C-alpha cells in the first residue's frame, strides 16, 4: 500500500496528460478522418514555444500564449494544406503529417539546439502538495491534473453546450447536411483542427515543464497516443479517456509489482532457451512493449476498440 497510493496519483497525472493529447487527436479524427501524425510534434512545439515565451515574460504568459500559437499554426496547416490534400484521400494526408513530424523535429533542433532546454515549472509550483504514506506528492503533478481537467472541461462545454458546438456535432454526424443548411463546414474543420492543436499545445506547455523538453519528446509520446486512440476506439472521447488512464497507469503498476514472468508461468520453464529468456524478464521490463501488445490484441479481438462506435 505504501507505494500503491502515490503510484496511482502519478498514474492519474500522467494519464490525464496523455488524455489531453489523445482527446485532440481523436476529435480531429472523428470529424475529418485524419490521423494527424504530427500531433505529438505540435505538443513538442507547445513546450518549446512556452519555454521561449517563459524566458521573456514568465511561465504563466507562456502557458496561455504557447497553446494559442500552436492552435494558430494548426489552423494554418489545416486551411492551407490538409484541405487541399483531402480531395486526394487519406493516404496523402497521412503522408503529409508524417513528413511534418520529420521537419518539425529538425526545425526544433536547429532553433533550440540538440539537447534538453531548461524549462521548469515556476517556484510557486515547486513545493509539495501533500504528504501521504511517507511520500510527497509534488504540487506540479497536481497542477497537471488541474490544467487537464480545466481544459477538457472547457472543450466539453464548448462542444456540448454552445451553438458552435452544436454545429460541430452536426458536422460530425452529417457534414453534407450541415453544409446545405448554410454552415461553412470548411471553417468548422479549421476550428476543430485548431482546437486539437491547441490542446496539444497546452499539454506541451505543461508536460514540457513537468517532464523534459527535448527534441525527442515528440517521438516518445507520438506512438503512445496512437495506441491510446486505437485501444479506446477511434473517435470515442470516452474510450480515449479510459485508455489514457489505463496506459498511463500500466507502467506504474508494472513497476510496482515485482514479479518475473517465470513466477507466473512456472510450468513452462526449461522448455526452450528462447522461452527462458522471455520468462526471465521482470514485469517492469515489459512496460514499454505492453501498450503495443494491448493495441494488437484489441485490433484482433475487438477491432472497434474498447468504446468505439464503429469498427476501425
Amino acid at each position, binding site marked *: 500500500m505504501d507505494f500503491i497510493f502515490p503510484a496511482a496519483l502519478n498514474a492519474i497525472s500522467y494519464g490525464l496528460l496523455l488524455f489531453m493529447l489523445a482527446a485532440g487527436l481523436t476529435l480531429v479524427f472523428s470529424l475529418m*478522418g485524419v*490521423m494527424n501524425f504530427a500531433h505529438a510534434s505540435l505538443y513538442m512545439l507547445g513546450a518549446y514555444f512556452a519555454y521561449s515565451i517563459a524566458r521573456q515574460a514568465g511561465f504563466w504568459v507562456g502557458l496561455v500564449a504557447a497553446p494559442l500559437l500552436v492552435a494558430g499554426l494548426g489552423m494554418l496547416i489545416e486551411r492551407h*494544406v490538409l484541405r*487541399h*490534400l483531402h480531395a*486526394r484521400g*487519406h*493516404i*496523402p494526408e*497521412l*503522408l*503529409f503529417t*508524417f*513528413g*511534418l513530424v*520529420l*521537419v518539425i523535429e*529538425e*526545425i526544433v533542433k*536547429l*532553433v533550440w539546439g540538440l539537447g534538453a532546454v531548461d524549462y521548469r515549472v515556476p517556484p510557486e509550483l515547486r513545493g509539495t502538495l501533500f504528504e501521504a504514506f511517507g511520500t510527497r506528492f509534488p504540487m506540479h503533478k497536481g497542477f497537471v491534473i488541474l490544467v487537464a481537467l480545466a481544459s477538457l472541461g472547457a472543450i466539453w462545454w464548448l462542444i456540448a453546450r454552445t451553438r458552435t458546438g452544436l454545429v460541430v456535432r452536426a458536422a460530425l454526424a452529417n457534414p453534407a447536411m450541415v453544409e446545405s443548411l448554410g454552415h461553412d463546414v470548411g471553417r468548422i474543420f479549421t476550428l476543430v483542427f485548431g482546437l486539437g492543436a491547441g490542446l496539444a499545445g497546452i499539454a506541451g506547455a505543461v508536460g514540457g515543464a513537468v517532464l523534459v523538453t527535448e527534441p525527442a519528446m515528440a*517521438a516518445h509520446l507520438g*506512438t503512445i497516443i*496512437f*495506441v491510446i486512440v*486505437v485501444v479506446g476506439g*477511434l473517435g470515442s472521447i470516452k474510450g480515449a479517456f479510459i485508455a489514457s488512464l489505463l496506459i498511463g497507469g500500466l507502467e506504474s503498476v508494472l513497476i510496482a509489482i515485482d514479479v518475473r514472468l517465470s513466477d507466473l508461468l512456472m510450468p513452462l520453464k526449461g522448455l526452450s*532457451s*528462447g522461452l527462458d*529468456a*522471455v520468462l526471465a*524478464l521482470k514485469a517492469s*521490463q515489459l512496460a*514499454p*512493449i505492453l501498450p*503495443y*501488445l494491448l*493495441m*494488437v490484441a484489441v*485490433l*484482433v479481438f475487438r*477491432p472497434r476498440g474498447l468504446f468505439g462506435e464503429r469498427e*476501425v
Partner: protein
Amino acid sequence: MMRLQLPRAGRSGYGAPAVGAGLALLVLLPLFGASRYWLVLGMQVWVLAAYAYSYQLLFGRAGMLSFGHAVYFGLGAFAAAHALNSRALAAMGLPVEMIPLIGMLAGLGAAVVFGFPSTRRAGTPFAMVTLGIGELVAACFLMFPGFFGGEAGISTNRAALGGWVAANYGAADRAYVLIALWALALGAMALWIARTPLGLLARATRDNAARLAFCGIEPSAVRFRLMLVAGALAGAAGALSTLLNEIVSVESVSLAMSANVLLMTVVGGPAHAFGPLLGALTLTLMQSVLSRFTHAWVFYYGLMFILTVLFAPNGLTGIVSDVLRNARQLGAGGMARRYGAPVAAALLAGLLAIGTIEIAFFRDEGIGAARVFPAWGAAGLSLGCLAALLWLRRSLRGLA
C-alpha cells in the same frame, strides 16, 4: 489517384535494350575502377532499392501504408547474420550466394506471424497496427540480447562462407556484383508479382474493396498474401544489408528504417517501375554525401518529402516521365520556353532558402558561408527567397 505504370520499356522499340544495357552497366560498376567507397555507396543503393521494391508492392499497388516494414527487413537481416555465423550451415556447405534465401524465409515467417493481425484492416487502421507492431519488435530488441546481440548488434563476416561462383565475397567488387544481381532479381520479382493475378487483385482491394468482396474474394486474404510476398522480399533485402555491412544492429528493425522505406518509395515514385531505385539513390546520396556538407540534411530531406507529397504524387519518376513526354511533344525550344521560368524560379527559391537556413542556424559556428555573410544576410536572402517564390507562383500560373 495513382496509376499502375508498368515498365515503359516494352512499349517503345529501343526502350528495353536501353534499360537493360543501363542496368548491366550499373551491375558492372566495379569494372570501371570505382573505388571502395563508391562501391559501398552503390551496394547501399541496391540494398535499399530491393527493400523499397518490396514496399512498393504494398504501398504502390495495394495502397497499404505500412509504418513497420523494417520488422521484415530487420528479421531477415538478423537471420542472415546468424546463418553466416553458424558453424552447422558452413559445415553443410551453404554457399554465400544463398544467404538471401535465409533472409527471405525469415521475412516470410515474420509475415505469417505479424501479417495476420495487421492485414485484417486496410487504410488508416492498417497504418496504425503496423506502427504498433514495428514499435513492439523494436522494443523487444534490447530485451533479447541472445538473438539480437544487444546494443552492439551481431557482427559477421561475409567471407566466412564460401561461394559457388567466387571462392569468397570478402572483396568489395565481388560483393557488389552479388548484391546488385540479387537486388535486381528481387526488384524484378516484385514487379512481376504486381502483374500476376495476386498483384491485380491487390490493386482492386485498394480501388474498390467492397466490390471485390461482393465478387466473392475476401480483400483481407488478398492483403495477407501480398504481405507474405512483401515480407519475404523485404527479408531478402535485409539479408543483402547483412552481406554489405557485416553487422546488424537495432537500427535494422527500428522505426527509422520503416520510415526510410516509406520516404524512398514516395520520393522515388510509388507507382513507377524505377521509383524504388531512384528513391534509394536519392536517399543514399543525401544521407552519405549531402550530410557531409550540412547538419540540416534531414531537414532538407523531410522538406523534399513534403513537397513531393504535395506537388508530385507520382514522385521523381513521375516528374521525369512527365518531362520526357512533354519533351517529345514540345522539343527543346518549346521546353525551354514553357518550363524555363518556373524551373529557374524554383531553383532560385531553393538556393536562397538553403542559404537562409544555413546562415540562420550555423552562424554561431563561425565558419564557412556563415562567416562570409553578416547576420542580416539571412534576412536579405529570405526576402529574396520570398520574391523567388512569388515569381514561381506567377510562372506556374502562366503554365496552367
